[in-house]
């Protein structure tokens, strides 16, 4: 009996029906609206982390920069003591819990079959840079703008979301070997 379970537990469980996962996600988002009056996000927390890092290394420089200052405030509060930072810690924990129960915790690299790990890492890094820059210019990422602003019917968020999909589909062809 026990052996049987263990055998099963090695193979990952299938993903949920996307509509149910979406429903769950939407309810979490709704709960956030109801309780906090704000939506979800991710890139904001990363900005806080960057601002905090810069202010540790070069406090004067950070405080003279309007962008960092937005995250550092007047300097009396720890920039990492921020709503989004705690939320992102939660995202990590939540992802891990889900992964644990679905037996998906595995050290691996996501890529197409013909790609080397090294190349994939370079692409991931470059993609991250683009994403970070774009997210700041667009005032949020897929979670902060597309999901949150989208459900609030925010004009800029919808324009942003359409552009995300447009950008991704437009460039998908050029990096197809990475994925297919």
């Amino acid at each position: 009996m026990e052996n049987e379970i263990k055998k099963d537990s090695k193979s990952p469980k299938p993903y949920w029906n996307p509509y149910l996962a979406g429903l769950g996600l939407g309810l979490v988002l709704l709960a956030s609206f109801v309780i906090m009056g704000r939506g979800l996000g991710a890139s904001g927390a990363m900005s806080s982390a960057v601002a905090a890092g810069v202010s540790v290394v070069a406090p004067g420089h950070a405080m003279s920069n309007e962008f960092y200052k937005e995250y550092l405030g007047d300097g009396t509060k720890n920039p990492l003591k921020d709503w989004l930072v705690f939320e992102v810690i939660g995202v990590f924990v939540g992802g891990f819990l889900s992964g644990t129960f679905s037996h998906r915790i595995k050290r691996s690299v996501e890529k197409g079959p013909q790609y080397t790990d090294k190349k994939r890492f370079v692409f991931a890094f470059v993609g991250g840079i683009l994403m970070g820059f774009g997210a700041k210019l667009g005032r949020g990422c897929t979670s902060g703008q597309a999901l949150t602003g989208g459900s609030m019917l925010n004009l800029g968020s919808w324009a942003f979301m359409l552009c995300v999909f447009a950008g991704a589909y437009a460039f998908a062809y050029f990096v197809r070997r990475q994925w297919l």
Partner: protein
Amino acid sequence: MSPFYKFGYFGDEASFIIAFITGIGFGFFLEKGGFGSGNKLAAQFYFKDLTVFKVMFTAIITAMLGIFFLGAFGLMDISMVYTTDTFMIPQIVGGLLLGLGFVVGGYCPGTSIVSCSIGRIDPIFYVIGIFVGIFIYGEVYPFISGFANSTPMGRITIPEYFNISYGIIVFLVVLMAIGGFIGSEWVEKKYGYKKGDGK
């Protein structure tokens, strides 16, 4: 009356705890939906697997209908929910850049965290990349702040901009999403991974 926080039902410290719990829910459903996998996310852009679209839009219409009806029943003051101001041109450019980053890197910030949490290695590079990207943005911000703050439109929603009733827009978005779902099921059947593709 909600939002609770904005009405002062609890303080900042409690809000962080709520942030953590909310985050757990967020991460949990993202992972359950398959957003922890770069392959699955990227497959969206090759019409192989439209999970991203389905999950995202189901979430959007769920939350949208939720706040709409909470507002309609007088349980929620929608105008107190924070949304970012619109800066049209920078957001369009940012969106395009982000889309490019999405397909090159394979994740968006939230999903990269989830993917890290289940032990993948590539999103770690991706997250470091995001940090670098934000750092670059911060460093060049003094030079591009004019552009970054151009075309400000304030806090504006689609119903306000087009001066159409909120309810009509909600209805249209729901119709659009359902249409999109039917379309994506069809696309998946046509172009998607067949059974036994190992995906």
